[in-house]
């Protein structure tokens, strides 16, 4: 399920939704090199309880050293355009990790930029769990 503003074409919305699907697939298969290529070269990735990762190499490294993902899925995707080839997306996520008693569920905000070839790349992504910290 996704919604969008009128400032984006149908093709743009479809392309951003496809990026979301691709990210789900790459992370779920732990293909972090491919995942990092969904980001712009100077992008920043902000996950909870770790410093920000800046640039594709750092983002790929974060993935390799991060939680051992079994499956990542997005839902409630909302895509908004703001002109000049920029868009932002919010969604819920569910992250199943090896050894965890239950999936992590949370939300994310992703800012996208359209490249000259029409591809949309993530320039900033931040994700936060909905769940209280372990031990609370």
């Amino acid at each position, binding site marked *: 399920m996704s919604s969008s503003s009128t400032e984006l074409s149908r093709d743009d919305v479809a392309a951003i939704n496809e990026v979301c699907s691709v990210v789900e697939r790459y992370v779920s298969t732990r293909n972090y090199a491919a995942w990092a290529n969904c980001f712009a070269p100077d992008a*920043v990735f*902000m*996950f*909870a*309880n*770790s*410093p*920000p990762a800046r640039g594709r190499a750092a983002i790929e490294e974060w993935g390799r050293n991060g939680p051992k993902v079994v499956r990542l899925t997005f839902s409630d995707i909302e895509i908004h355009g*703001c*002109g*000049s080839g*920029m868009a*932002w997306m*919010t969604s*819920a996520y569910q992250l199943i990790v090896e050894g965890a008693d239950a999936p992590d569920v949370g*939300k*994310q*905000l992703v*800012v996208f930029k359209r490249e000259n070839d029409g591809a949309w790349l993530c320039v*900033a*992504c*931040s*994700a*936060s*769990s*909905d*769940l*209280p*910290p372990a031990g*609370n």
Partner: protein
Amino acid sequence: MSKNDVAKIKTTVRKYCAAANAGDPDAWGKTLDGKAVWLPPDAPRLVGSKAVLAFTRTRFFEPYKIKLGVKLNKVQVFGSKAFAPASFSLDLTPKAGGDTIKATGKAVHEFRKQRDGSWKYGELIWNYDKPLA
């Protein structure tokens, strides 16, 4: 990109921090767009400035004396919307007594231009660099 818009956005962020540091939730709430969406760590998504303010009163203003600093890394303005990744420092001193919790973190801010030309917070997601002690 208008330098004037960027300056106004930075003014909003200064007011946001000043109100937090003064323990003034009403002034803090005035920096939010009415349809603001908050994506806080360790809690569900909040929609609307009333819900955001209620959450922030309960979670931050009532139990703690706040010392907040926000550094916008790069403000990008696109018409009536703007984005800025940011870093922040947050000290929370329990009003009931106890040690100050010191945290650093990062955020993505989305700002919305208002009819009067000012800018307010639209969407904000943030998290901490380490689990809160």
